[in-house]
């Protein structure tokens, strides 16, 4: 270790702790408040001291004034001799009045004090001067407030009062001021330390937990003390965020498991088909057929891939910026028109009831894709179980700020307890998987609905299924946007 006295680790740790404390916002704020408080305390105490002093001063003046009045009365009644006698008598009394009467030459005629001033040149009125009692040593100088009079005979009369009492009070007050300031600083400092320590502890709790979360322990949650303070609210928000992230992570994990499973199946078929063809195909025709099947399988794989990617995009919210005001009735009718021939071919009666002014912030492609999935489903599963027929009814209407687009069929429907499940990825109700499909159609519709701030509702059409895409209506009505459109050219003109 280097020579000298380097601070011990403990000391250094303590210093570092203090330094860290001093850098916190809580500490800075506390210190600032403390400073302001000390300043105001000082000002108030100073004001009190000044006021006390003024009061004492007035009191002394008044006492002296009374004394002088009494002396003047004696002088008026008994002349100089009476005055001298009174002064002599009073001067002997204990008490702190001091008297001095001098003649025109400056010699003391009577009095109980020696004034340390050139007595002859003192002008009449109030003044503060040094004095001492005759029996005291010369070097003791007391302070007194003195009123000087010039009597008609040219005599000078000094009447004063000692200021020691006042000075003592002043000192007491000053000391009290110092002590109270010290107390304020001490208590404030302690308060700041306490608050900062508390805040630091909370922040450190958050930091420790986030460190644990960053290290991969996603189940950790920030401590909440139930005091409902700002830290609690922050912690609750962060915890909610962590919950959401956890959900997404779980979703992602489930998805990748499902992807692994559902991509492996067609990949296996693809591989088996190719192997089979390699082994068995004898004619060019056989080989050609096997290759066509292989291409079909790979197309299927690609479709799964596309659908998953699209769901992921829609769920991540990345596409939210692509939402623009759209007239949903146009999208619905174009899709209905696209699917109508197919429905009729499948032996379904096709019916549309589409309202007007169905304005929503939407991505036309995604809504189109979602509706196309609903139509595909209705065509696939909406045929009456007992030997064909049935109907496909498309409705689009708005009510209460919501736009409801429904595709209803008369098929077997979905049992109530399975409705939540079919929205999940890769869930298909016919275990045999006799009909072609990916098991992603409704998940995609649900993801698109969520992206638009709406939802997919699966309802009982008794019998059959009614899939309802519920989307929030755009606030700006068509009428207003028309008005804006009309207003623009006027501005330009």
């Amino acid at each position: 270790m280097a020579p000298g006295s380097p601070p011990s680790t403990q000391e250094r740790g303590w210093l570092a702790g203090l330094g860290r404390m001093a850098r916190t916002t809580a500490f800075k704020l506390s210190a600032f408040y403390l400073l302001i408080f000390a300043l105001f305390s000082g000002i108030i105490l100073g004001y009190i001291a000044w006021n006390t002093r003024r009061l004492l001063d007035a009191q002394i003046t008044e006492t002296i004034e009374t004394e002088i009045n009494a002396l003047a009365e004696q002088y008026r009644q008994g002349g100089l001799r009476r005055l001298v006698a009174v002064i002599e008598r009073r001067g002997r009394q204990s008490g702190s009045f001091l008297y001095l009467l001098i003649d025109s030459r400056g010699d003391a005629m009577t009095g109980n004090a020696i004034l340390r001033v050139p007595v002859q040149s003192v002008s009449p009125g109030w003044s503060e001067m040094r004095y001492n009692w005759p029996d005291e040593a010369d070097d003791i100088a007391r302070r007194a407030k003195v009123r000087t009079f010039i009597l008609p005979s040219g005599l000078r009369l000094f009447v004063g009062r000692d200021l020691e009492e006042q000075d003592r009070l002043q000192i007491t007050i000053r000391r009290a001021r110092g002590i109270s300031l010290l107390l304020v600083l001490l208590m404030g400092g302690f308060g700041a330390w306490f608050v900062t320590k508390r805040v630091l502890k909370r922040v450190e709790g958050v930091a420790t937990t986030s460190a644990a979360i960053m290290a991969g322990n996603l189940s950790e949650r920030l401590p909440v003390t139930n005091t409902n303070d700002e830290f609690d609210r922050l912690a609750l928000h962060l915890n909610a965020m962590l919950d959401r992230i956890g959900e997404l992570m779980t979703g992602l994990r489930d998805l990748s498991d499902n992807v692994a499973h559902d991509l492996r199946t067609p990949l296996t078929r693809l591989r088996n088909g190719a192997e089979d063809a390699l082994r068995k195909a004898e004619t060019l025709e056989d080989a050609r057929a096997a290759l066509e099947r292989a291409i079909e399988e790979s197309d299927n794989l690609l479709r799964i891939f596309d659908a998953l990617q699209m769901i992921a995009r829609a769920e991540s919210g990345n596409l939210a910026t692509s939402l623009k005001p759209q007239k949903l009735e146009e999208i619905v009718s174009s899709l209905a028109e696209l699917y109508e021939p197919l429905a009729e071919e499948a032996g379904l009666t096709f019916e549309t009831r589409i309202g007007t002014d169905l304005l929503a912030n939407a991505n036309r492609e995604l809504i189109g894709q979602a509706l196309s999935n609903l139509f595909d489903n209705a065509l696939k599963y909406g045929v009456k179980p007992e030997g064909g027929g049935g109907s496909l009814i498309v409705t689009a209407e708005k009510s209460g700020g919501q736009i409801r687009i429904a595709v209803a069929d008369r098929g077997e429907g979905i049992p109530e307890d399975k409705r939540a499940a079919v929205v999940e990825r890769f869930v298909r109700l016919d275990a045999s998987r006799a009909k072609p499909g990916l098991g992603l159609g409704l998940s995609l519709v649900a993801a698109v609905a969520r992206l638009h701030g709406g939802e997919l509702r699966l309802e009982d059409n008794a019998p059959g299924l009614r899939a309802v895409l519920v989307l929030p209506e755009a606030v700006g009505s068509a009428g207003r946007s028309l008005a804006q459109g009309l207003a623009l050219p006027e501005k330009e003109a």
Partner: protein
Amino acid sequence: MKILVVEDDPEAGRYLARALNEAGHVADLAADGEVGLEMAMAGSYDVLVVDRMLPKRDGLSLIMALRAEKRTTPVLILSALGQVDDRVLGLRAGGDDYLTKPYAFTECLARVEALARRQNPQSAQLTYKVGDLELDRLAHRVSRAGEDIPLQPREFRLLEYLMRHAGQVVTRTMLLENVWDYHFDPQTNVIDVHVSRLRSKIERKGHATLLHTIRGAGYMIRDPGR
């Protein structure tokens, strides 16, 4: 037709160029964005097929540089990014069509040929005639051998698109994109039903078949006399 393929994967590039050559076109190959831009500026190509992710200069930047130089050569963008917003970005950069990888070659060929046709000034003519089938865009009228055929608006647009690309293969996705303006892939044969309805309206017994199904690719309307 002279086509420039800008594709960095040598195998995919060679495959595409060879297939285009076999289809009767002349295809050159550039392996990165810089070379691609140089060749596109220097040569007189009818269509460019540009991969979106390229070394040295990416596909979108290549197209923007080309458009900044007032070159209007139609461009087909090939990309592994097939989502809605990617397509919009690609078209906004100046691309004319967008094809997601992996693609069927027939789809690619059909689109390349359609793009070359679009460049042709006579593509936007007012009337089309294929054999004895006539379509008048202004009057919104279709007739076969002088006999009027009433069509729904969408059927009219479908026929118009097919006739504009007469003699060319038109794929199902091209029809969905250009007639319905949707870019997703419907899982059922929705387009086929529309085409077969149209076919039942325009074909006549005793007359030559005009609207053909091209197996594994799409449809083509063709003048039997040629």
